[in-house]
């Protein structure tokens, strides 16, 4: 089926299954484990009917077609008022890396992940290596047919719910910077690996610490080349700025739909500048969608992107916050004082949006990259 046909058929399917899909109109629970568990049946339904398999290669559990088809599914799920499963974000960011560097792993791992039966996380950041990721210290010692990994990761999204981690560790000398790191695909159940969730300011255990005490991994768990991990991370980052950003704009349009509906039912609570706020926010969202559509199309054509994707990242980060601020205005004073499910969800999402200018590449670093690599401005002293 072509894109137009898929869109139309999917809309029909969503309408026909509205009763069955009812529970999936509601937002994430504060208990993240329960929230993910509740989304699994939705993922199963979408998968088994084929919809979430479009745009993924047939050899790896998909139904083939361009990745742009996934974008259509994201648009339509959210436009129909359903909550896009959070696990989808993990697929968009991590799966392309496996497909490119370890298609054999993708063949064994992707089908289950596509169905919603397996989750993956990224083990990159460390307590002493956030923006300065190249200074990471988790070490992987080569010992014949295996590596022994020692160290600690932090800010690992959904870490305590995942079965696999894409782990970045140092295989070079301590001072080897970005040239001495390697990407490993590690089973979270491996002896010596422990996970500790971190409660975040939004009331959810969004991220985890991961401790590695002599974790033994087979040598063939390497993704890409030994000491080639930095390139793997850079490759992965394109999809965080591209495909993941597309998902986010789809979700943000839908959240605005819901907030506007709430505002129409209580117009007396709107401030005098509500129209300006809504309009200005919508404009930023439209700009992101326009940018993102172009980026995802380029990625789908197999073209790798350069420093221009930092523009996408800055646009995405700022609209996440601007939209949540707008939703707060439209639903006021719900986020401040209410305790119904909708208010709890909007409140935790408002809080979560505060971190969007930091995760995946802090805004300050993005601005450095834009200025120096895109605009060609000279580096500082």
């Amino acid at each position, binding site marked *: 089926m072509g894109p137009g046909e898929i869109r139309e058929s999917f809309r029909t399917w969503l309408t026909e299954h509205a009763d069955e899909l009812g529970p999936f109109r509601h937002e994430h629970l504060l208990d993240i484990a329960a929230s993910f568990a509740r989304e699994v049946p939705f993922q199963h339904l979408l998968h088994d009917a084929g919809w979430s398999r479009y745009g993924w290669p047939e050899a790896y559990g998909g139904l083939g077609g361009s990745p742009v088809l996934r974008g259509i599914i994201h648009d339509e799920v959210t436009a129909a008022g359903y909550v896009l499963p959070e696990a989808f974000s993990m697929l968009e960011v991590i799966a392309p890396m496996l497909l490119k560097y370890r298609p054999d792993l993708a063949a064994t791992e992707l089908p289950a992940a596509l169905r919603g039966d397996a989750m993956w996380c990224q083990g990159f950041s460390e307590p002493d290596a956030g923006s300065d990721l190249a200074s990471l210290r988790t070490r992987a010692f080569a010992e014949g047919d295996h590596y022994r990994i020692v160290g600690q990761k932090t800010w690992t999204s959904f870490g305590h719910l995942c079965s696999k981690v894409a782990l970045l560790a140092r295989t070079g000398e301590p001072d080897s910077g970005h040239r001495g790191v390697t990407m490993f695909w590690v089973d979270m159940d491996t002896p010596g690996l422990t996970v500790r969730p971190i409660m975040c300011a939004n009331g959810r255990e969004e991220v985890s610490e991961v401790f590695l005490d002599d974790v033994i991994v087979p040598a063939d768990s390497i993704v890409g080349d030994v000491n080639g991990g930095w390139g793997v991370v850079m490759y992965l980052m394109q999809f965080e700025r591209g495909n993941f950003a597309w998902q986010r704009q789809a979700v943000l*349009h839908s959240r605005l739909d819901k907030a506007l509906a709430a505002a129409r039912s209580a117009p007396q609570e709107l401030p005098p500048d*509500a*129209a300006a706020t809504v*309009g200005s926010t919508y404009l930023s969202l439209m700009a992101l969608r326009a940018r993102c559509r*172009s980026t995802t199309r380029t990625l789908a054509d197999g073209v790798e992107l350069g420093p221009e994707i930092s523009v996408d990242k800055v646009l995405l980060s700022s609209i996440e916050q601007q939209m949540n601020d707008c939703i707060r205005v439209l639903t006021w004073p719900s986020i401040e004082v209410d305790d119904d499910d909708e208010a709890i969800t909007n409140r935790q999402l408002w809080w979560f949006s505060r971190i969007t200018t930091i995760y995946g590449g802090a805004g300050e670093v993005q601005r*450095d990259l834009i*200025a120096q690599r895109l605009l060609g*401005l000279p*580096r500082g002293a």
Partner: protein
Amino acid sequence: MMDADELALVRTSLRHLLTSTPPARLPLALLDQGWDDLVADDGDRVIAALFEEHGAARAASPALDVVMLGAIAAATSSEAAGLDAATTAVVLPALSRRRITSATVTNGNVVVQGLLTAGWERAATVLAASPAGVHSIDGSRLDMASTGALDSSLTLQTASGTVPLAAAPIVAGHDAWERAIDAGRRALASELVGIGRVMMSTTIEYITARKQYKRPIGSFQSVQHRMAEAHVAWCAAADAVVTAYEEHDSWSAMAAKALAGRGVLQVGASCFQVHGAIAFTEEHELHRYIQRANMLDALLGTYGDLAWEIGQQLLGGGSVPRIPRL
């Protein structure tokens, strides 16, 4: 549809045309260059290129009339006389919140109050739009006066006067005028993008060369971050303009015009700041681009007005448009 090389050639020849043709002669010069064929072949990209170069060159011409008349002609089913941009000018709405018409009909008279762009003196006929439709009026029946002191090089004129309805026949419907407003907004948005492009490139050159504290001022992080944010705002404008040409509707035209106004005014302010004092001199070019950007933002809906309009429509009901469509 042209390929990239053909479009680049067209862009170069348009740039040359804009800088070498007196404003009043521009519509004829475009026709001589095969404008109608170019538009028939790849209208959106050609119009966008014309207006980007118009902005980059800080040209003042009837190019907007050409495009708006073209839109009226395209939207009008009957053989519409007097839509030749060589002899016809368009009366744009006066600067006024949320009004897109340039005339009203009262007691059997058409009362015109609007703006004419540079090169207006070529036009024997002007078109002014009331809520009833687009009226064709003998230009000599209207009073003209120069205006637009924020950017006098734009050579805007006010056009005003009262004409009996019999002498101001309707030649196109209000819907045709709305198409013209859409086309005009897209064109001005493209023009703003062109202005922004020049401001960014000349500023980057300047801050790379200019040294203080023994290093280029463009190497300071605060300067870099300001320019990075300006570039992001410009990109948002440029992408929105591409969307507007693809979608070809009022919604996306409003959005593009708003994002272009907002973005390029931010670019102007940032570029001005990082120039230090030199850009404040009359001799320096930058303030002229900033003036032009401000006036173009003011025409056919400021970014504030259009953002408000968009917000009002969203608050009014319906689901949020997912634009551009996938």
